[in-house]
C-alpha cells in the first residue's frame, strides 16, 4: 500500500495557480525526488503536504489516513516531518535540546512533574537523552551536543534539522533542498547519511533538490514540476533525459 498518495492537489494565490492537479503516489520506503525550475511550486507543494497552506482542492492520504486540511501540528503527529529551505533551527538552544524538542510528543511527562522534579521527570529525561544521542551519532553531531545550534557550521546545521525532524519518529520525511549551500564533499556525505537513515529508521523520503548529481544518485523516482504542473514522473534516467525537462531547465 502507498505511504503517501496525493490526488488532484491544488492551490491558488489570487490569480496565480501555484500548484495545479498535483498527483503523486509514494510507496513505503521509497526515496522520491521533486525537482523543477525556480518558482515551479516545489516548496508550495511541501507547504500543502505539511498543512502550512490549506489546499483548494485535492486529497492527501498518509498510510491510509486522510490528512487533508489538518493543521501542521496534527500532520506532524500523523507522521510527516520536514526540513526547511532556509534553515529554521532553535538558535538559542543547544544541539541536544533541538533534537529533544523533536522528541516532545513521543516522550511525555507533565509540566508539574517537570517543575517538582518528580521521578517521571528523571526517568523520561534519561530516555530522551539516550534517544537524542542515538540520533545525533547517526549524523555525527554527538561531539557538538552541548554547543548552541547557531554556532554550528552551515553543513551541520542542515544535518541537525534532519535529525530534529527524524526525532519526531515520522513515517514520511520531507527534505527541502537538504544540500543547498553545501560543497561537493559535504553533499557526498549527506547522500550517504540519507541512504543510511532511510534504512535505519525505515522512513519514506520525498526531497526537493537542485543538485542533479544527488538526485540522480540516490532517488529511485523523480517528479518534475513546472509552473505548478506535472512535467514528467518516473525513473531518474528517463526523466532527466526527457527533452521537455531539459527544455524547462535550459530553455530552447
Amino acid at each position, binding site marked *: 500500500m502507498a505511504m503517501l498518495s496525493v490526488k488532484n492537489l491544488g492551490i491558488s494565490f489570487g490569480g496565480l495557480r501555484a500548484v495545479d492537479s498535483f498527483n503523486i503516489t509514494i510507496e513505503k520506503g521509497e526515496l522520491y525526488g521533486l525537482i523543477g525550475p525556480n518558482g515551479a511550486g516545489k516548496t508550495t507543494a511541501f507547504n500543502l503536504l*505539511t498543512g*502550512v497552506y490549506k489546499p483548494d482542492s485535492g486529497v492527501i492520504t498518509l498510510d491510509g489516513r486522510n490528512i487533508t486540511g489538518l*493543521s*501542521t*501540528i496534527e500532520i*506532524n*503527529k500523523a507522521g510527516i*516531518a*520536514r526540513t*526547511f529551505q532556509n534553515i*529554521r*533551527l*532553535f*538558535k*538559542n*538552544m543547544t544541539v541536544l*535540546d533541538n533534537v*529533544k*524538542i*523533536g522528541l*516532545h*510528543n513521543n*516522550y*511525555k*511527562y507533565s*509540566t508539574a512533574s*517537570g*517543575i*517538582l*522534579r518528580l521521578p517521571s*521527570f528523571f526517568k*523520561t*529525561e534519561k530516555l*530522551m537523552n539516550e534517544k537524542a544521542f542515538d540520533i545525533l551519532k547517526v549524523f555525527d553531531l554527538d561531539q557538538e551536543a552541548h554547543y548552541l545550534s547557531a554556532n554550528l557550521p552551515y553543513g551541520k546545521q542542515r544535518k541537525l534539522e534532519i535529525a*530534529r*525532524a527524524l*526525532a*519526531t519518529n515520522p513515517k514520511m520525511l520531507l527534505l527541502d533542498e537538504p544540500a543547498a549551500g553545501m560543497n561537493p564533499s559535504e553533499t557526498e556525505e549527506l547522500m550517504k547519511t540519507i541512504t543510511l537513515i532511510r534504512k535505519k529508521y525505515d522512513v519514506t523520503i520525498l526531497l526537493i533538490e537542485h543538485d542533479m548529481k544527488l538526485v540522480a544518485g540516490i532517488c529511485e523516482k523523480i517528479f518534475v514540476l513546472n509552473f505548478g504542473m506535472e512535467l514528467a514522473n518516473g525513473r531518474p534516467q528517463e526523466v532527466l533525459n526527457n527533452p521537455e525537462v531539459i527544455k524547462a531547465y535550459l530553455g530552447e
Partner: protein
Amino acid sequence: MKQWKVFNQLNKSTRANVITIGVIAIIYVLCQLLIAVGALSNLMQGLLVPLCYYSILAVSLNLTVGILGELSLGHAGFMCIGAFSGAFFSRLTENTITSPWIRFPLAIMIGAIFAALFGGLIGIVVLRLRGDYLAIVTLAFGEIIKNIINVLYIGIDGSGFHFSMKDSLSLGLAKDGDIILNGAKGITGTPNDTTFTIATIFLIVVYLIITNLVNSRSGRAIQAIRDNRIAAESVGIDITKFKILAFTLSAAMAGIAGVLYSHNISTLVATPKNFGYNMSIMILVFVVLGGMGNIRGSIIAAVLLTLLPEYLRFMQDYRMLIYAIVLIVMMIFNWNPACIAWRKNHTIKGTLLSLLKKNRKEA
C-alpha cells in the same frame, strides 16, 4: 574535597541553581545578622521585603519576555490582581482564621490563582497578537485592572456580599456591615503578615519553579516557540497550549509578589505609582538589564536598581538623572560586545589564578 567533586559532577543547571540559592541564603543570613547587631538602618530594613517581591516580579516577567519571547507591558496588572485578592481574603478571614501560618499561605494561593486566571484569559485573548500589538493590549489590560479596582466597592454583612461600582453608600450594608474594598481608598487594615523570611522563601520557590520549568519538556517547548514558531509547529509543538501555560504561570507568580506587597503595607490602594504603567516598565527594565532569559540576572538587576535610587537620595533632584546615566552605563557594560570580551578576559577566577601563578613563580 570529596563534596567538591560531587558538586562538579552535577549538571550545569543544577550547579547554577545551587550557587544562586546559596548566595540568596548567605545574603539573607547576613541581613539578619546586621539587623541583630543593629547595623542596618530602618530605611534598609524596610527595603528588604520590596527587594524580594521586585525580584519575584522580574523573574516572573522573564518567563514571558525572555523565555516565551513575547513583550508584555501589563505585568503590574497581574501583581495588582494578586495584591487585592490576597488582601481581600486576609481581611475577610482575619477573625475566623487567626493563625497567620494558615491564613497567609492561603492568601498567597488565592492571589496566585486569581492572577493566573486573568493571565490565562489574557493569554487566550492575545494568542493571535505578536510584538508591538501584544505590548499595547497588555499595557491596556494593566490600566483597565487598576481603574476597575479604583471604582469597585465590596462590603459584607450578615446577608452576604454587596457589590457596587458607584460609592460605598450604595452598597446598602446593614449596621454590622464591613466595607472591605472601598473604591479608590482601597483595602485598609490588611494584617502585616509578610516578613523578610517568608519573602525570601517565596523568592527561592519562584526561582526554582522557573529554572526547573526552563530545563524540562514544557520549558523547552516554550523556548522553541520563541526561537522559531514555524519550526516548532513543524515538529508538533502545541503553540496555543504552551503560550497560555507561560502566560498563566508568569501571572501567577506576579500574583504571589502582589500578595507579599499587600501584606507588607497597611493601606492598599491602586495608584499609577504602584500598579501603573511605570511599574510595568520598571519590571521590564529589570528583565532587560539582567538579560532576557537569564533568571539569575533578573534578580541581580532588580536588587541593584531598587537599591540605587535609595543610595542616590542625597543628590535630591538630580537623583533620577544619575539613575538614568547609571542605567545606560550598566546596559552598555552588560551587552556591548567589546565589554563582554573584556569581562571574559578579566573574570574573578582568572585574575585570582594568574595572581597565584605569579606568586608561585616569584617564590
